[in-house]
């Protein structure tokens, strides 16, 4: 830049660039700005020394202040637990029915239960317990293993057909595969089952199926097909069907039954969380 041109009005140097007669002034960054940069650089060096900064192959530079965001988080979590203890202590000692009767505790349970449900239960049972084929609706009034608070808590804690020692389970027999019933007998009993909710078409088959039902099915599903909560035998005389209520679905379920599995949550959720989520499920609309 041997020949620096100066703007006649401002007395400032130009960059030498020109567009259609308009020349660009060479305006350097303001000094205060520049010094702010310098201060930032000095600050950054101080930061490296005091706080954790550079990574190394085996770890990272720890800094002389010994700060760690993980430790801060732990501290916050301990404080959070402390602030919740006025609730959680009572949750630990009280039964689920006692908690359900206390509006304040119930509110606390609802607030937490909603999120516990969304994280752990909703993938199978649907949001707000709307259910799906094979995964029970939790918002209706039909409960295979009971719909009282205690029942729900038990199901959540130990699961159904889970690997937990205290799990509740039953086995719908493999009627066709184990050659207990013939294909014809299965179709007849399916017709009978359908008649329990008033949807049967073949009266003769219903008559034949009734005898088979009383012999093979009534021990678990009840003589009138209304089920048995103690044994986990589903109610066949209502409008709610876990695997569908058309004839094919019923025949399939008798021939080679699907047996749903609910995991035990006692290992994954703690006692308080189990009570919270059980109370939440109880509130969805079907709790007894």
């Amino acid at each position, binding site marked *: 830049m041997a020949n620096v041109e100066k703007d*006649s*009005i*401002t007395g400032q140097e130009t960059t030498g660039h020109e567009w259609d007669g308009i020349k660009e002034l060479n305006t350097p960054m303001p000094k205060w700005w520049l010094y702010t940069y310098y201060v930032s650089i000095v600050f950054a060096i101080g930061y490296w020394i005091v706080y954790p900064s550079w990574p190394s192959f085996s770890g990272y530079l720890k800094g002389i202040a010994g700060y760690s965001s993980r430790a801060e988080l732990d501290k916050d979590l301990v404080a959070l637990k402390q602030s919740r203890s006025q609730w959680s202590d009572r949750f630990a000692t009280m039964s689920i029915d006692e908690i359900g009767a206390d509006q304040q505790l119930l509110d606390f349970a609802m607030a937490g239960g909603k999120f516990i449900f969304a994280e752990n239960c909703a993938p199978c049972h*649907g*949001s*707000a*317990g*709307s*259910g799906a084929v094979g995964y029970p*609706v939790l*918002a*209706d*009034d*039909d409960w295979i293993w009971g719909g009282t608070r205690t029942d729900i808590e038990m199901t959540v804690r130990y699961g159904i057909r889970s690997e937990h020692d205290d799990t509740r389970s039953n086995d719908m027999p493999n009627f066709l595969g184990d050659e207990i019933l013939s294909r014809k007998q299965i179709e007849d009993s399916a017709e009978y089952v359908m008649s329990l*909710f008033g949807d049967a078409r073949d009266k003769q088959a219903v008559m034949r199926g009734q005898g088979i039902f009383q012999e093979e099915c009534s021990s678990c599903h009840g003589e009138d097909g209304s089920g048995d909560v103690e044994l986990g035998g589903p*109610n066949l005389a*209502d*409008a*709610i069907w876990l695997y569908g209520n058309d004839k094919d679905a019923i025949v399939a379920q008798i021939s080679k039954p699907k047996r749903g599995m609910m995991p035990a949550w006692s290992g994954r959720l703690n006692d308080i969380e189990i009570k919270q989520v059980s109370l939440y499920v109880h*509130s969805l*609309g*079907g709790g007894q």
Partner: protein
Amino acid sequence: MPPEQQTTTPETDEDKSLYASRVKIHPQSVTGVFRRLKWLVLIVILALYYGLPWLRWDRGAGSPDQAILADMTGRRLYFFNIEIWPQEIYYLTGLLIIGAIGLFLVTTLAGRVWCGFSCPQTLWTDLFMLVERWIEGDRNKRLKLDAAPFSLNKLWKRTAKHAAWLLIALATGGAWIMYFVDAPTVTVHFFTGQASSTIYGFTALFTATTYVLAGLAREQVCTYMCPWPRFQGAMFDEDSLIITYEEWRGEPRGKEKNKERDNLGDCVDCNLCVNVCPTGIDIRQGQQMQCIGCALCIDACDSIMDKLGREPKLIAYDSIANMNAREEGRPATKRLIRPRTIAYSLSLLLVMVLMVYGLSSRADLEINLQRDRAPLFVTLSDGDIRNGYTLKILNMARLDRVFDLAIDDFPEALISVIGYEKDGASSVTLSVKADAVGTFRVFVRAPTDSIQADVTEMRFVLTDRKDGKISEQDSSFYGPKR
């Protein structure tokens, strides 16, 4: 370069400088009608500003007893007996519209009276100048002090001035906070160190802005920062009051002792009108954007005219039409009723009527109803269909209320509410505490054969037990696809 372009370049480059550095203004004190009026307005508005938060208003137990309070945490706006909930914030919009149109109307009629007499920027600058005058003396002393070399006296005066300014600024910033939290409580907490960092932070912020805007920036706020002077010219016409200088009477100006006195105009070129001006302009150059219409130059000129035994109002609060009329010897005109004043008045009246109507017929009850999206509906064991709803009843009255919830045009539907009605009934009684929101889980069930379509339109009806007032909320009932 073509020759004609050569001729357009200015002769000297200095004319084209793009930057005007600020000349520090030292307004001289003045007495007169307008100055007295300005002091009066200043005292009244400052008293209101600092005093209003301390006004009490009994609203019964459990509610704040401050007359004017924007309760952020409680989400209420209290103004004497009016209580605004967050969803009614449009009342504030109405107030702002009234303020804006009112400002337009006043500006059209009387010019920049807002700027000159009641704008906080003008008031606090005036107050800060008063303090400055007490400590450092009037214009001439201040000019001398400015020019004087550093001395203990100068240091003391400057320190005292800025300390006094900061104290006023602190009181101003602190008073602002009092409109948002209980005034007596926050005052005690503030000085005993118990107030939250938010309160200290905001007090510091408003203290700083008051100090900077009223102490240091002053007329620059009006000239460069405020948008209002830039567009209020649109509201002026020749009948609007402005600060006028009657050039035909004043010019040619000259000193009183000038030999040619008899051939000169009334202006004796004493420069007092310039010296008292808080924005440092010369009104004799005519109406200017910087003029805030404070009328102090009128007081200044009148005092001189009085001394010399001449007619007052060489500088006057007047309209251009009037000034021209007098110049031409016609009778003075005063036109208050003009198309634009009519338009402003009518729109002002309209908004005010709407506001008064809105406030007087303000509902003390609001219902929010949300239908469950998941599950859309639930089939019950007996085949009935059930839908879930979350009902919120906003009881904006200061008394506990009891309501009956029922459903219109859906006789088969049964309502159950968690905690209120378990088995389902055609009507359920709900209670909501005073000034609170009641949240209810509502279930509606109906037999399948009573549902005609996938979606049945229906209506919740809420009846106040006490006065029988009915509130309705439309909703729908979902069933299986048909």
